[in-house]
């Protein structure tokens, strides 16, 4: 048997070498296999690395969400904003059930949303500080830090802050005059605003300040602060989650600045990249970017982007000037004069000179900025430890505020530069529920208390009509007792503030964190290879328990992003299919020709006793050998190419690719899978294209042997 096979392979191999067209076919198979193995390997590696990014940064292996949701889950956004997800109300039961599955490691509750935040402008912050100083001076508030200061020092600080405010006013007036002049229209700026500015820029206003400090501060806060536009609104994207579970489950997450949110407490962690990109002083951010670019070998002199950064640094010094009070301005001017060796005494002019950076002086000036100027400045609009006020629209449409303390910033290892992974911040799930008007344990307790105090009865929406107008309508449903709850105090006054401070310090139990609304949840698996199987298990379990959820893979959950690789894969298959189809047509033709040419040989073989099956195999083997030889070479070549690429790795060409590469470099590998698939394709192509000529060959009669050669 083996001997016969060896003979057939020998005939096949010899026949192959006999025909030059086989070289063309072999070349096509070789090329097609190389393309398939190299691109397939790259796509596989890309898929694996993207999976690491998606799974490790937000999605987990499986995402679950309510089956009642209008949209499908899309963690990285979709056309037309965030998907509309229905709330999952029985999360504790679901979590317990899922964590009972053998392959489930953890279930992390989530809710994805975004909100506009404002951190207050520099004038707001200065006035706030001034108000605090006055309250301490007048004995109206106790501040352990300020209270210990001698009265002289307190006065000096008040004078400093006042000088800072006056400096801001001066800059602002300059802006207004410039705007009026540039537009040649006196009405370009609201006359009332101009009048207010003119008033606070008079000596009389400041002479009378101490007489009624709170009145003066209120005027500044209401009429002047809104004119300062250095603090635009920021759009913040965040996930409300069980922060402890998140930190444990997503092990690539690490704290960059500050500390983790203490266990069970409310808190906010800003994505490091967002913190740097959006919250850092623009000038400092641009200096950082120039530094990074220079380290990569780019040159200011010839690089348009870097030239633009330098220009913007020179012209946009106002953000810095506004931050410096009189004392700091004096210090900064002195330092700049010494550093630049000039007698210029205008801060703006000095800064402009400092930021005229070139390839030669950049390193020095960068160091000067961070060593001397930065300590006088607020480098970030939100400081670690600050409380952030987040405003969002609840599901029912009203605006809700939530204050959360910023504990620090975080990043995912390897994805530090990726905007896709670095734009989503983290919030505790309690604050998230508050923001979206979902019932939290606090709210439930508060509601219960209110009901007891007022004697109100909870009436559901469905029963409201009956309760108001039905049989029992004679009795009063609710009667508020004036004075029991001071609504104003509760909602806006100190009560609310105290309440919120309590909330910030409060430690929640795991049960409180779990109980309540969850929009989606990440399921971490022990063995990610059994993904599909586990999704089925989850679906079956949820169905059996009467929990209406959908379970989707990370790929599906990542929306459009997850489909990109699939699209590339389809394109690759189409491309390779075209190459192999051409090969099939040529093989078919070539084998038909060969069969016709070998009629007498095949007839002779039949005459001397070869069965038809032998002839069939002889012809099939010829192209199978062709396929295996050239396909095998293609596999070797492809693997070698991928290995050569892997030796250096492919550097991420831009920040977006960091996410796909799951780090700065993609190191591709060829796994067995594309090789096996390539082998199957080659066998299919060769056998399918030779089947017809082979059948024809088996029909050749042994009589043909008897006919003399033409």
């Amino acid at each position: 048997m083996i001997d016969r096979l060896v003979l057939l392979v020998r005939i096949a191999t010899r026949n192959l070498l006999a025909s030059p067209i086989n070289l063309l076919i072999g070349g096509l198979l070789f090329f097609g296999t190389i393309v398939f193995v190299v691109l397939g390997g790259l796509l596989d590696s890309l898929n694996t690395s993207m999976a690491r990014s998606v799974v490790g940064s937000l999605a987990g292996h499986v995402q679950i969400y309510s089956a009642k949701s209008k949209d499908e889950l899309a963690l990285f956004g979709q056309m037309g904003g965030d998907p509309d997800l229905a709330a999952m109300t029985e999360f504790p039961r679901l979590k317990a059930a899922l964590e009972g599955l053998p392959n489930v490691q953890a279930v992390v509750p989530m809710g994805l949303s975004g909100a506009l935040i404002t951190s207050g402008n520099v004038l707001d912050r200065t006035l706030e500080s001034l108000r605090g100083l006055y309250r301490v001076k007048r004995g109206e508030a106790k501040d352990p830090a300020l209270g210990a200061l001698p009265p002289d020092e307190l006065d000096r600080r008040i004078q400093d802050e006042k000088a800072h405010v006056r400096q801001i006013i001066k800059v602002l007036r300059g802006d207004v005059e410039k705007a009026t002049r540039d537009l040649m229209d006196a009405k370009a700026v609201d006359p009332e605003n101009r009048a207010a500015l003119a008033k606070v820029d008079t000596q009389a206003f400041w002479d009378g300040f101490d007489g009624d400090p709170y009145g003066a501060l209120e005027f500044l806060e209401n009429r002047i602060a809104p004119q300062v536009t250095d603090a635009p609104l920021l759009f913040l994207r965040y996930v409300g989650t069980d922060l402890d579970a998140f930190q444990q489950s997503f092990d690539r997450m690490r704290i960059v600045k500050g500390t983790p949110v203490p266990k069970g407490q409310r808190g906010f962690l800003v994505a490091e990249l967002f913190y740097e990109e959006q919250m850092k002083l623009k000038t400092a951010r641009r200096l950082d970017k120039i530094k990074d670019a220079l380290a990569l070998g780019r040159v200011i002199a010839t690089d348009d982007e870097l030239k633009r950064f330098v220009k913007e640094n020179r012209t946009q010094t106002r953000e810095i000037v506004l931050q410096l009070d009189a004392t700091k301005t004096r210090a900064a001017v002195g330092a700049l004069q010494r550093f630049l060796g000039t007698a210029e005494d205008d801060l703006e002019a000095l800064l402009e000179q400092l930021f005229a950076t070139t390839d030669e002086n950049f390193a020095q000036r960068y160091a000067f900025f961070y060593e001397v100027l930065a300590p006088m400045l607020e480098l970030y609009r939100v400081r670690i430890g600050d409380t952030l006020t987040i405003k969002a629209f609840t599901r029912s449409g009203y605006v809700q505020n939530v204050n959360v303390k910023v504990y620090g910033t975080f990043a995912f290892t390897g994805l530090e530069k990726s905007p896709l992974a670095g734009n989503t911040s983290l919030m505790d799930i309690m604050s998230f529920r508050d923001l979206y008007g979902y019932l939290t344990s606090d709210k439930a307790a508060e509601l219960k208390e209110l009901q007891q105090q007022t004697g109100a009865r909870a009436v559901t929406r469905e029963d409201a009509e009956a309760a108001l107008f039905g049989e029992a309508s004679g009795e009063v449903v609710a009667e508020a007792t004036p004075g029991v709850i001071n609504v104003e105090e509760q909602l806006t006054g100190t009560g609310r503030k105290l309440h919120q401070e309590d909330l910030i310090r409060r430690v929640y139990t795991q049960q409180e964190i779990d109980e309540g609304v969850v929009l989606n949840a990440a399921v971490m698996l022990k063995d990610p290879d059994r993904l599909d199987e586990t999704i089925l298990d989850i679906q079956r379990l949820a169905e059996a328990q009467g929990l209406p959820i959908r379970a989707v893979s990370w790929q599906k959950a990542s929306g459009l992003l997850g489909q990109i690789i699939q699209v590339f894969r389809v394109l690759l298959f189409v491309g390779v299919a075209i190459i192999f189809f051409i090969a099939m047509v040529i093989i078919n033709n070539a084998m038909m020709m060969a069969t016709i040419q070998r009629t007498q040989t095949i007839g002779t073989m039949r005459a001397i006793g070869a069965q038809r099956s032998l002839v069939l195999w002889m012809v099939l083997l010829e192209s199978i050998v062709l396929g295996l030889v050239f396909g095998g070479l293609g596999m070797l070549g492809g693997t070698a190419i991928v290995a050569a690429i892997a030796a250096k790795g492919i550097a991420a060409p831009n920040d977006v690719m960091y996410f796909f590469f799951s780090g700065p470099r993609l190191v591709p590998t060829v796994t067995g899978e594309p090789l096996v698939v390539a082998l199957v394709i080659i066998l299919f192509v060769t056998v399918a294209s030779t089947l017809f000529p082979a059948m024809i060959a088996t029909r050749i009669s042994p009589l043909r042997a008897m006919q003399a050669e033409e």
Partner: protein
Amino acid sequence: MSHIVSIRDVTKDFHLGQTVVQALRGVTLTVDKGDFLSIAGPSGSGKTTLLNLIGCVDTATTGVVEVAGQDTAKLSERELTNLRLNTIGFIFQSFNLVSVLNVFQNVEFPLLLQNKLNAADRKQRVVSLLEQVGLHTHMKHRPNELSGGQRQRVAIARALVTEPLIVLADEPTANLDSATGEAIIDLMKSLNERRGTTFIFSTHDHKVMRHADWVVRLADGKVLGRETPAEAVAHAMGQEVPKEARAS
């Protein structure tokens, strides 16, 4: 003596479009074991058709063809192939060697199809036959590196390698010069005598005919007679058959 080939009232028709060509018209013939038989006749007399029927590569339109005791009309395609493989050796006019195989491999080929001997036995058999045909020094040569006579000797070795009962040769010398042709016939004759293998060969060459034990002369699809070579040659040349040449 048993008949190794027995043909009775065989006709063979070929259809060429609307016309029917009768290649054989009621042929009856027996061949005995060990015969060295020539089938003679002019072109179109039905020599090759008769050989095809004996060689089981074609079947009769009517009549009975028995080869090695088996009625070929009753055998399936697969059984006919096996009969050819194990009972019959073929020698062709154009040698018909497999061009991509060397001399040794060409001769070994039928043994591989039979799948009865191991590699060592095959080698011994092939080498011994190549020695008998005088080509054991050319075992690694490809057919295109050999002369016509050498090629036909390879073909003879290939035909004999399975130790068949019958060897059929269709005009084995037609593509050879006369000296080489005679040498080939001599070789066949000596193998016939040494091994007792039945040889049936067609020819229209008188010199070749002379080596046969018997000549079956065909014309227009009919057997004219079973004659001695001398009678056959004389008939073929249109002469009176010399008395001493007549069959007894």
